[in-house]
């Protein structure tokens, strides 16, 4: 069933790297306005799945719909212009550009350029640390600050849906907590639908309104945090 409330729908997606099947018929959907977390072990196919949704990787089979439109196989830059933005693993800031240049380049799409000064102000209000460092090269920042630049950069594109790929990887617990507070704020006051890719089940359950577990390239469990007990998730997570 496709409903209007689902902002993102993935049907039977399959991605191969040579002979290796990274995503094996995954079905995944994201209701509008939700925070959905997608958890799973290393190599379960989470990153490949969202790389494929955002157009970096091409699927072998299956379909991706965003806001009701089929975006399967579209190039990444067109998907961004539609309002779907990825915050990639390891932040991937433009390290030889300043913080502010990173943010400005986030507003590259036509739609985003018009309101770039307002969005820039919104991002600086959200992350005051970035305003202080706005003229520093992003390569000189700490891991947490770089992650903030990546989030800010994504926000500059005026997204309706942001996919966060393992945003807490390698960060200190206090920094992670702070970033999660901001993500909830982006979701609530900014009205942005959020997908969180995580390895930490507890943290993502607390943050999200819906949780999907991925194992060996498939979504094996899906539900709201109320429906899913930690035991159920653990069993699905490890495939036992």
């Amino acid at each position, binding site marked *: 069933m496709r409903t209007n409330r689902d902002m993102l729908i993935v049907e039977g997606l399959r991605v191969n790297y040579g002979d290796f099947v990274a995503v094996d018929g995954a079905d995944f959907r994201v209701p509008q306005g939700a925070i959905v977390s997608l958890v799973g072990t290393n190599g379960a196919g989470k990153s490949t799945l969202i790389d494929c949704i955002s*157009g970096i990787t091409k699927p072998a089979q299956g379909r991706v719909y965003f806001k009701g439109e089929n975006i399967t196989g579209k190039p990444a830059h067109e998907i*961004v*212009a539609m309002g779907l933005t990825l915050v990639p693993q390891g932040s*991937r800031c*433009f390290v*030889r550009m300043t913080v502010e240049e990173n943010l400005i*380049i986030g507003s*590259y799409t036509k739609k985003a350029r018009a309101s770039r000064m307002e969005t820039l102000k919104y991002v600086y209000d959200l992350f005051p640390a970035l305003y202080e460092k706005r003229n520093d090269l992003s390569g000189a920042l700490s891991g947490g600050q770089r992650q903030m630049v990546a989030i800010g950069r994504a926000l500059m594109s005026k997204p309706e849906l942001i996919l966060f790929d393992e945003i807490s990887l390698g960060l200190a617990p206090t920094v992670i907590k702070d970033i999660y507070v901001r993500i909830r704020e982006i979701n609530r006051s900014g009205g942005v639908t959020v997908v969180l890719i995580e390895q930490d089940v507890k943290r993502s359950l607390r943050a999200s309104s819906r949780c999907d577990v991925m194992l060996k390239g498939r979504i094996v469990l899906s539900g709201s945090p109320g429906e899913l007990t930690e035991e159920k998730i653990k069993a699905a997570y490890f495939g036992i």
Partner: protein
Amino acid sequence: MAQAIINGILIGGLYAIIGVGMSIIFGIVKLTNLAHGEFVVLAAYFSLAISAATGLNPGLSLILVGPIMFFIGFAIQNLIVNRLMPRGAEAPLLVMFGMSIIIQNVILQVFSADPQHLTNPLDTSNFALGNAVVPTTFLIDCVIGVCVILALNVFMKHTYVGMAVRAVSDDTTAAKIMGINVNLIYGVAMGIAMVTSAVAGVLVGQTYNFYPTTGSQYLIISFGIVVIGGMGSIKGTLVAGLIFGLAQLLGGFLFGTTLQLLAGYIIILIMLAVKPQGLFAK
């Protein structure tokens, strides 16, 4: 000595504009453009033809030569190089090598092997600076070269397209997910590099004689600029041009003009030994 230093500095500005296009393509498209020298010479021939046909001053012919070269660069990148890039670095390298041979021979067919020169009204004029006599053409070359490079720097820093070019050179995948059409930007970068080649071609053409085969000289100068300045650094090309120009002219002054070119290459060798990534490497 003063004469050598002044000439070295002025020639440095010319070398910088010769090398900057090569440096941009190295840094952004990650392509060794072996046809860069031929593109510089091709622009000189375009200017020659346009001046002959319209009576325009070679400098003014840039109004036409610039856009023509931009279009050629954009087309080569989009129609050929972009399609080959997923297969690794060798195929585009060979294509550009082939391109250099094609351009040389087309020029030879159309313009013959005779030496050519772009005449401008100030060709033979000099001015005195202290006890040195400086050809006005050298000064024009340097001023225009430096101005174009500075303008390019401003463009890269303050426009969306310029920033997109830098973003692509920094992290191609991240650029894609920020909404940048990477192949298009590669085409634009090649086009911009070709516009700098156009300027370089006209300046070189009004300063020295050129033949269908002079491109390789400018390719070597460009390699020197890239090695000294660092790939993709626009600021670096200015400093590198200065160093390279001074090294040649001072080398010529101290050890005799036969060793002038050698002096420049020795600086390149020293650079490769001491700081192989270049002065302003990114």
